[in-house]
């Protein structure tokens, strides 16, 4: 599933003042690629990630994912896109604290057709794939940071997305846990052909990517292609 960005711009208006976060980014990520977006703080890389994941809309320009123009899609179409085609892994995990690990993973399946049994089965399988079968009834406050991130990964995987977007997914993890999370993501990229886009400050992670997009001051500074797809 390819991602095409055409002159993507984003301006925020707060209290009458306009702040330009992205000034026009044109780039392409091929289907099955592992791409990293890097840049200093405030460069607009998280803003770009949010637009790719349809968590926000660009002010100008187009983002086309698997043929779907996100800038022209309705709110419901974007919601379906977030459910069926893309999954997000956040730095702060973004789990719902009053739900168990299993209930958090089931959430994306609630908007799909299917029986309760099927949902539970799929969620248990996703939790097993991240090594958390023994923690299914735990709420986030009873899980370590690494375990919470793995629950988030299970939630991201349960819908069998085509693209996984990670906004500094290892940012709050210790080195060892960060490595295991990245290993899992790379395995998914390699074995299932998932397109993987990660925002990161880590050079170690970036050097494993097929492509690195360098963003500075809202513009694409350069694109470093490591491997051909």
């Amino acid at each position, binding site marked *: 599933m390819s991602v095409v960005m055409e002159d993507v711009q984003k301006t925020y208006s707060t209290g009458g003042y306009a702040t330009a976060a992205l000034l026009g980014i044109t780039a392409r990520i091929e289907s099955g690629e592992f791409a990293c977006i890097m840049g200093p703080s405030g460069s607009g890389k998280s803003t770009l990630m*949010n637009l790719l*994941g*349809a*968590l*926000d809309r660009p002010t100008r320009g187009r983002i086309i994912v698997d043929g779907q123009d996100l800038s022209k899609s309705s*709110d*419901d179409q974007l*919601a*379906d896109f*977030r*459910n*069926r085609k893309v*999954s*997000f892994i*956040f730095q702060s995990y*973004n*789990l*719902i604290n*009053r*739900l168990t690990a299993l209930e958090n993973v089931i*959430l*994306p399946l*609630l*908007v799909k057709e299917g029986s309760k049994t099927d949902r539970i089965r799929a969620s248990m399988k996703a939790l097993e794939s991240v090594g958390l079968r023994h923690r299914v009834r735990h709420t986030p406050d009873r899980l370590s940071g690494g375990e919470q991130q793995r629950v988030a990964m299970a*939630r991201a995987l349960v*819908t069998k997305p085509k693209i996984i977007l990670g906004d500094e997914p290892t940012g709050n993890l210790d080195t060892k846990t960060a490595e295991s999370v990245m290993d899992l993501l790379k395995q998914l990229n390699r074995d299932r052909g998932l397109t993987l886009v990660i925002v990161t400050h880590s050079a170690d992670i970036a050097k494993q990517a097929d492509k690195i997009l360098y963003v500075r001051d809202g513009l694409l500074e350069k694109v470093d292609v490591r491997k051909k797809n």
Partner: protein
Amino acid sequence: MKVQMMVTLAWQALISRKLRAVLTILGIVVGPALIVGLVGATEGFKVSVEERFSNMGLNTMFVFRSFRGGGTNIDFRVVDQVEGIRGVALAVPFYRISGTVRIGSDTQSITVIALDLSKLQTIFPGVRIREGEIPGVSALNHALVGGGVGDPEGGQTVLYTVNSVVSTDFNTRVGGETIRGTRSFVVSGVMEPFGQGFFINPDETIFINTLAGQSLTRQQTFSGIFVVARSAEDVDLVINSIQERYGRGLRVFASSTFLNSIRSVNEGISTILTSVAFMAVLVAFIGIMTTMFTSVAERTREIGILKSVGFRKRHIMGIFLAESSLTGLLGGIVGVGLGIVLSYTVIGIFGGNLGVGGGGFGRRSGTAPPALDIAPVITPELLIGTVLLALGIGALAGILPAWRASKLIPVEALKHE
């Protein structure tokens, strides 16, 4: 996403904040409780009063000589004139004599009413005979005894049965003099308890024939006339005709007039009380809306998470609407339960104090008049309607907060602490 799933998510959210949910529900409970309690009580009062007046005869009027100077003496001529008035079906003259019966060492004040006994059940349709029969027209030494004569407390004592003898010490005024005496009658029949009457208290009355009354009172003029109109619509016409003809010489009282007044007062009270109840519902509405806005604000990040995994606007809206509706529903159910208790409590406090003085024309018989036998009227429609109202109020109050929640931009919501 099915509605059931939204309700499940809403329920989970509610029970995760139990204290707040309980407090919000308590705020809703008052409205439904007042609606059920007060409507049940006022309807019960209305039904009881109407039933009692129906027993007395809604077409029945009481005519008697004015107490002021210049009152018209009621003799057969006047009775015939009254019976001839358009709209009058029946005019039955009666004597009223005050008396007592002995119960052991105590006495009970009773009233003796002498009239054409064959017309008794036309005048008072609620009269039922428990035992025996109404004395025939020629049975001058026989009496029909009220259900409470000899048993004023309404207990299990049966003092008078058919063929027993009831002796009454009576007093009456003849030519300015008070005459006292004792007279005995054979009991031909005993009435079923009648309950509180209008102007007379049948339970504490001994009914005898007109001639027997005449011999007791030694009067040719009557105490009054029972007038029965052809229909309820003729009552006012008859009253006006009597007043036109006799001016202040005769006084006319119609149970339907009093009933209309009571209905009017009851409706007025009911309107005020229902307005109070609906004000409470309005307060509940505001309470739910406030709670829901707070809930949306606190769960902004959660909304962002749900949207990020693909929940649509209508799913978010559905979850919050389900939450507010559930709150309303629970408040409604608890409220109607409380309302039933309130209804019985109100009746219990005020119903016992609603005994109307009887046994004489404005003068008390000497014994405490029996209270109105009131039961609240709580229909399934009232209960279901009130619960649905609470549910509807909950849903309505949740619309704006739910809409706001659904409009949140995912990335903005996710940034919320």
